[in-house]
């Protein structure tokens, strides 16, 4: 039944309207399995809305989103997809361990998952600290851990590296690639262009449109730009000129 060749996510003609704004005017893309895919774009480009649609918590106006072979938001997907929002959504008045224990229970994770996850996000030393007493970076790692604890097949991360120090950011990206090596698909959004080179594949989003969907090397070769930031600019200028 499992088909590992099929993409993890297929978005086809997705339209999302929020208030008076058409945030996504009909976007199509696919996310291959077992890769770290970066979703890059300035704030307001529709990254969060796209991620929310893939997780199945966004009201959509049209189009289809297929995740791991099922329509996004299907009950069967709820333990297979992990979602980390931009702001840490964990319980500040509970300890790190209590938070992870609760989220582990919700997805039916095995007993040792909590300790394993705390090691993965480097919070073993803070296991018994209340989350609201931790630093911002530590809190966002608790939030990441709450998604990791269920060993999801698809991990959707909205700006997970904001406010982290460079060492921690490097470690986090190393972990993303380790997870991808084990077969997990990761979709990571960021507005920091220098994170582009750490992804297996890049999607550049601007005003709800996909400007590019390529490997980092392919993108640089195609635009002749020395880095992702300037490749992004080159693509925008080309679009404006056209």
């Amino acid at each position: 039944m499992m088909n590992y060749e099929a993409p993890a996510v297929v978005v086809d003609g997705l339209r999302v309207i929020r208030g008076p704004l058409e945030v996504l005017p009909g976007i199509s893309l696919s996310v291959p399995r077992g890769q770290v895919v970066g979703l890059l774009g300035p704030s307001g480009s529709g990254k969060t809305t796209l991620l929310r649609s893939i997780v199945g918590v966004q009201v959509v106006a049209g189009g289809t989103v297929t995740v791991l072979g099922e329509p996004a938001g299907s009950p069967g997907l709820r333990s297979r997809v992990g979602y980390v929002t931009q702001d840490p959504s964990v319980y500040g008045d509970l300890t790190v361990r209590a938070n992870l224990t609760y989220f582990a229970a919700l997805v039916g994770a095995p007993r040792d998952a909590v300790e394993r996850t705390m090691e993965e996000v480097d919070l073993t030393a803070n296991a018994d600290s209340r989350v609201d007493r931790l630093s911002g970076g530590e809190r966002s790692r608790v939030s990441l851990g709450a998604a990791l604890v269920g060993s999801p097949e698809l991990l959707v991360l909205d700006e997970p590296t904001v406010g982290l120090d460079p060492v921690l950011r490097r470690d986090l990206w190393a972990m993303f690639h380790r997870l991808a090596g084990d077969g997990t698909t990761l979709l990571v959004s960021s507005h920091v262009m220098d994170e582009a080179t750490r992804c297996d594949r890049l999607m550049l989003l601007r005003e709800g449109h996909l400007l590019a969907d390529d490997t980092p090397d392919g993108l640089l070769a195609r635009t002749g730009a020395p880095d992702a930031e300037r490749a992004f600019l080159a693509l925008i200028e080309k679009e404006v000129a056209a």
Partner: protein
Amino acid sequence: MNPRLTLATARRVLLQVRADPRTLGLLIVVPCVLIGLLAWIFNGTNVFDRVGAPLLGVFPFVVMFLVTSVTTLRERSSGTLERLLSTPLGKGDFLAGYALAFGALAVVQALVATGFAIWVCGLDVAGPRWLLVVVAVVDAVLGTATGLFVSAFARTEFQAVQFMPAFVLPQFLLCGLLVPRDGLPRALELASDVLPLSYAVDAMRTLTAQVDAAGDVGRDVAIVAAFAVAAIALGSLTLRRRTA
């Protein structure tokens, strides 16, 4: 509904309450202080015997309404609710988990407050005393269920707190404590017939006055419980997995 997920949620809510000892203290101590004050004010009259038991039912309703509406609102605004609803946790599990956790707290609160009223303040009850605790706990669950429902209509904690006088005080005025319900103007009497707190207070009054109270009290408790179930069902309609 999945009992395992419901219990995990109830356990998590109780851990959060335990992490806040001041709230826990207030939950237990405040009803006793109020009961004590009441007994003292009406010292030497029979008023305390008449209103003491009904108030034992009103306090848990009010307290649990407030606590639940604020906690659920916090859960909505912090993004944890959205996260929970993207997991296998069902809406019913979420609501039942809260009702179970606060119901358990209500058992402790009701035992302490009832014990205090009977043994310290000398409350005289004709019916079986354990029924006082049962009615108080059902009232608390009603407060939790109503608080869960109402929190959907509040955007800030300020609004949630304002819903207390808006939802609770009219019920308190009409429940028969100030003026017996059959002595109210006809329109108000009809209104009091469809408000759950009226039945909570009726149950407590029956308990105070009748030795053989179990039948009438059972009927009133069933009505209050039905209101609680209805509030939980309405509350589950306000939880949306997909939002705009």
